[in-house]
Structure formats: structure tokens, C-alpha cells
């Protein structure tokens, strides 16, 4: 784990030097919410659960829960996901490294 962290640190420094956007250089998801009805998630890993009132998405840093109703996955590609519908709440579950 320690070795990996060091590697990450070096990478971060390089990226800062090159002024690379964080969402491209790393696996951190970028979540954009437009109004209360549109949500774009980039850099996601997989869909864990999909109901029209509840969506659970796993990302590289944790799990994203979306509550609402009439939720549709408008577009789905390997790295982005566009959710439309009435979004009522978003919460995150971070993976704690132990």
C-alpha cells in the first residue's frame, strides 16, 4: 500500500506540473448535475443496481447512490452515464482503506 501511495504522489506531482485535469489523469469520477433532472457521471466502473427510483453506481473511489423517481439511463457508454429523471438525493459511500 505504501509503495502505491508513493507512486500516486509522484504521478500527482507530474500531473500538476503539466496542468492535466484531474478527471483525465486519474480514475476519480466527475459528476455533473444539471438542474434537478439531469446528471452526468464520467469515469464510472459499473452499475450495481438499477431501479426507476434508485440507482447504485460503483466508481473507483466509492459507491454513488441516486434516489428519485422515473429515473432513466439516457446514454450509457464505457465511461460516461447520463441519468435523467426527477433526482431527489445523491449520497456517496467512500471506500475506506484499512
Amino acid at each position, binding site marked *: 500500500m505504501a509503495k502505491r501511495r508513493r507512486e500516486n504522489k509522484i504521478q500527482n506531482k507530474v500531473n500538476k506540473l503539466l496542468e492535466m485535469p484531474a478527471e483525465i489523469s486519474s480514475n476519480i469520477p466527475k459528476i455533473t448535475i444539471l438542474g434537478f433532472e439531469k446528471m452526468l457521471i464520467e469515469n464510472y466502473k*459499473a*452499475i*450495481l*443496481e*438499477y*431501479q*426507476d427510483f434508485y440507482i447504485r453506481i460503483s466508481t473507483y473511489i466509492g459507491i454513488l447512490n441516486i434516489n428519485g423517481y422515473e*429515473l*432513466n*439511463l*439516457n*446514454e*450509457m*457508454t*464505457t465511461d*460516461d452515464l*447520463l441519468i435523467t429523471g426527477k433526482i431527489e438525493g445523491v449520497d456517496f459511500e467512500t471506500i475506506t482503506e484499512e
Partner: protein
Amino acid sequence: MYFKILLNIILGYVTIEVEGYFIERFMNYCNSQKIFLWNLKRTHSTKVIFNIGIKDFKKLKPIAKKTKCKVKMQKKKGIPFFMHKYKKRKIFVISFLLIILSIIALSNFIWNIEITGNETIEKAEILNLLKENNFEIGKCKIGMKTNEIVQQIRLKRADIAWIGIQINGTNAIVKIVEADVKPDIIKEDEYCNLVATKDGMITKVTAQNGTPVVKEGDIVTKGSILVGGWLEGKYTGTRYVHANGEVQAKVWYSQKAKIELNQVQKAKTGQEENKYSVKINNFEINLSKRVSKFKKYDTIETTKKLKLFSNFYLPIEIHTKTFQEYEDRQITYTQEEAKNIAIEEATKKLDEMVQNKEAIVNKNVNVENGADYIEVEVIYEVLENIEAKEKIVF
């Protein structure tokens, strides 16, 4: 993203219903295979409806097997499916293509020629000129060299200063600028007389050069010499010069008008009847009987060219004949009324003839009363310069 959807519409896509307990797994598999899905909708706890491209649809089978899902096709959309639908209707497709082809072919011909800018030259004359140079209605516009036509016409005609042919779709606009016919200018070193251009009574003679032949109060006729282009000296004898000067004269303009006291006038009853006919090139089709139901009527004909869009003229014309019914009405004027009407008519004509209103010196009205008519003569006395130069021919 929208680009991807558009591409799929062109290549064809299907709407699919997937049923099973592990739909999330199914979707994740799709993701790992880089299959693009859109418009996912959860209709039931075990069902999902979504769109998928045709190419990717074939990849779904093994995934469905793995995740134990049932795949059901619901709708087929996109251009390939649309084309497939019309494969059996060959005649429809062929005729559709024929229509498009004929429109394209017809748009290469000229179906209308508009002539603008001509004042003295007749329209038909210009059309004839164009026809001589292979430019007429119904000619193909491909390979047409308007520049050459323009050059040819300009060489041929001296009274056309400039001609331009502009082709807009199937409409050709011919613009013409007419050359002003210049009066023959007599050079300063040539000998000339001043002659009268109108009949009149001389009121003023100012000769700058030459000997005046007429004096104030003389009555001259058109063409007679006013100022001679010669000078007589004691020692030099007769010497010819370039006459110059101004001759002012009273010119009379008269107009007669005759009004009959008992008249039959046309009065429109307001009833109208329209008859249409279609004319294709020179072939006319009447859409209704030509004869009007009225006893007495005026006929007004109008033609309208059909056009597609703004300037795609078709070789089809629509003729409209409007019949307007009228009645004969007996009208009797009193002497006074008839006189006024006659004077009005005559002065109207005179006003057109005499442009310069300030030069009018006197207005006279002669009235002649007949048994059943009134004749009026209106005379204007106008002060005008009547001289014109004329070359002396020896």
C-alpha cells in the same frame, strides 16, 4: 454522444426489451464489451427497455446467455429498415426517383424570360434578338454562354447601351439599358441656320451670330429659317457662319372635345364570372365552357406562370378569364354639365402636352353648341424657344 446516436439512426437501431433477474450484470457486460446503449427505461423490476445499434445487437446473444436474460425485439428503426420496407414497392421507389430526376432535369431549362429596363424597344423585339442568338424559353441552360450572346447583341444593336443576362434558377432576367439617341451635334466650325421647330408667333429674337430673318410679330411655320447662317459685310460680301441665338415665340396648343348630350354608358353590375384554363407550352386545356352566361360583358384575361419555390418557373401557365357584366345606361347631360366635362377632358389632354406650366400665357375656351352635342376647343398660348440648328447644305 449525440453524434453516436445520429450514426446509429443512419446505420439502423433496434429497441429491445430485456427480461431477467440480473439486468445490472447484463448492462455491465455490455459496458465491458464497449456496447453503446441509450434511452434505458426500467418498466418493471425485471424488465428494461433500451435502444441498441444493429451491429452491437449481434453481440448481445452470448451476454444474454451468460446472464440468463431474455431478449425481445420491439421496434426496428433507422434508414436500413426504412429502405427494406420499400424494397417490395419497386414502382413507388422508381416513380419517386423519376420525379426527382425530372425536377432536376427541368431545372436546367429556362422557363421564363423577364425583360427589364426597356422603354422604347419592344419586348417582342428583344425576345426575337435573343432567339436569333439561341436564347429562348425552353432552352437548356447548360453550356449556354450568356457572355457571347450579350456580345453579339451589343454588336448588332446600336440603341442598346448595355445588356445583361442573369439566370436565377429557371428564370432569366434580361436587363437592358437603352442608349440615348443623341441629336446630331453640329460642330462649331460648320455652317448652320436656326429653324423653327413649331408653328408660332415670334415674340423675341436674340441672334448671337448670323442675320435674323424674322422679326417680332412674324408668324412662322415649322421648318422655316429664323436666323440665317450668313453675314453680309460691305467689303467682304456674303460670309457663312455658325448661327447661334435664341428665338422665343408664342405657340398655340389646342385640343377639341366633343360630348353628346344623350349618351349610352356602360355600367358594371358588379357580377363577375371566372373561367380558368391551363396552358402547357402551347397546348391549352379549358377547364370550363368558354362562353359566358352574361349577355353583355367585358372580358379580362390574365395569365400566371406557375413556379416552384421563389424562382423555379414551370412551363405551365394558368389563364384566368374574368367576365364582368355591364348594363347600358342612358345618360342625359344638361348643356352646362356637358360643357364642363368637355373642358375637363380637353385640359387634361393639354396638360399632358404642355409640360412647362409657368410658360402658359393665356388660356382660351371656344364652345360650340349643337343640337344634341357640345364641342369645346381649349387653346393654350405658351411661350417657348422654338429654334433648332440645321446644317447648311450647299
